[in-house]
């Protein structure tokens, strides 16, 4: 016998634990509890993909936004270029990169990072644009330099929009990182692709991805509350 039947046997062995699995029902709680540990590593890989991609995306978009803040002519070309990255479907992006950066996590991270740039850049620019002119004039009147004005007045007041952008980027990236498996980047998509007909497996992996997106969102809302104490003082 060759390797293939052996592999099949392993799957069958796992699946015959209960009749639920044998019938491939939509969700088999017993199997889910017994086999939950196999989803831990893929879930952690996906967390790493998301955190690294959004952090890199934020660093790049933030730098670009600071550049464009004082040089308005840079805004249209930056919106255009990041818009191209945003529009190219992630799956296509992975396979366009593979001849250049090879299969694996790095390729997935490059594509996911590129995807986040547009969302974060636009929101930082919108946040800075929404700072009231009187506030900036008051800062200048107090003798702040342009740099001090940016870091002490404009950026703090733009935080709600900036974090709103991070939330959109993070939640979308969690969903897209499920596709990283196609590029050999790991993550929960690996568990779906390795057994594409197995409903319970799809439900667990998909459910974990949704929960992960929700958890990231809650964390970012918490960070915003911590960083903008003055907004809490205003009665609703």
């Amino acid at each position, binding site marked *: 016998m060759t390797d293939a039947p052996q592999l099949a046997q392993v799957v069958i062995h796992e699946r015959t634990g209960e009749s639920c699995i044998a019938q491939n029902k939509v969700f088999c709680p017993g199997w889910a509890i017994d086999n939950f540990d196999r989803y831990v590593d893929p879930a952690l890989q996906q967390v790493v993909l998301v955190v690294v991609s959004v952090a890199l995306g934020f660093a790049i978009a933030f730098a670009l936004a600071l550049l464009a803040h004082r040089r308005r002519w840079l805004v249209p070309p930056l919106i255009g270029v990041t818009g191209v990255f945003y*529009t190219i*479907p992630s*799956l296509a992006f992975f396979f*366009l990169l593979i001849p250049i950066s090879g299969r694996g996590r790095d390729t997935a991270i490059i594509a996911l990072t590129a995807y986040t740039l547009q969302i974060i850049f636009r929101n930082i620019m919108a946040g800075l644009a929404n700072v009231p002119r009187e506030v900036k004039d008051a800062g200048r009147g107090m003798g702040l330099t342009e740099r001090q004005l940016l870091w002490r007045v404009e950026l703090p007041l733009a935080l709600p929009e900036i974090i709103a952008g991070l939330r959109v980027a993070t939640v979308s990236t969690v969903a897209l990182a*499920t596709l990283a498996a196609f590029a050999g980047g790991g993550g*929960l998509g690996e568990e779906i692709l390795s057994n*594409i007909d197995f409903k319970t497996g*799809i439900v667990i992996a998909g459910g974990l991805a949704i929960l992960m*997106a929700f958890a990231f969102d809650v964390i970012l809302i918490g960070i915003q509350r911590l960083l903008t104490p003055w907004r809490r003082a205003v009665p609703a």
Partner: protein
Amino acid sequence: MSAAPHLPLAGLEIFGQAIEFIFNGQEAPTVSGKVGGLDQVLDLTARHLEVTALAMGLALIVALPAGLVLGHYGRGELVAVAAGNAGRALPELAIIAFMAAAIGVGLLNVTIALAVLAVPPILTNTFVAVRQVDRGAVDAARGMGMTAREVITRVELPLAVPTIMSGVRTSTINVVATATIAPLAGVLTLGDFILARNVYGDDGVLAGAMLVALLALTLELALAGLQRLLTSPGLRDATTATA
């Protein structure tokens, strides 16, 4: 295949081979016969566009009236906004795989799965757009004796077009991207080049990626143009909401 091992950019010649694959095709790497070529490319592109259009049509039929009515009466804000947030979190791969495994493969099922992904941005943006319409304009319309229906279709809808269109564009990008994995559910789109490497070879995979990227960018440009056409001239200078 002739390799050129000492050129620094030797790996990049695969991009040339992928373009060759698109226009002329090549011998299939594993079985006998020809794969690629312009005929097959156009075939799969048409299928890709077909399933995208069907899904967007279905999503618009559901989400646009719902968003307009909810927005007009100011009801269901929680649902409309939560749908937008939750929709972003849906993992496309899990949706397509689950649809194929639990309900079955085929064009109808893929259309429904893609429409599920397309509804939230349209619904949320339509709702928000209608809510943001100047109350003064709505009051003036009522004062002129317009019915609720006329207020929605002749005042609120035209003023909401830019924001609605930005939701439609978000949905379309998402649907075109997700249609790439439709071959997993039995609908052969351009994604087939990418997913069936054993049939098309590495050149085919890269060709598929190039074609999908090109298709998405073309559609985005076309929709940006459509948005300009649909936007009333008085609104053209206004900036549209992001994401």
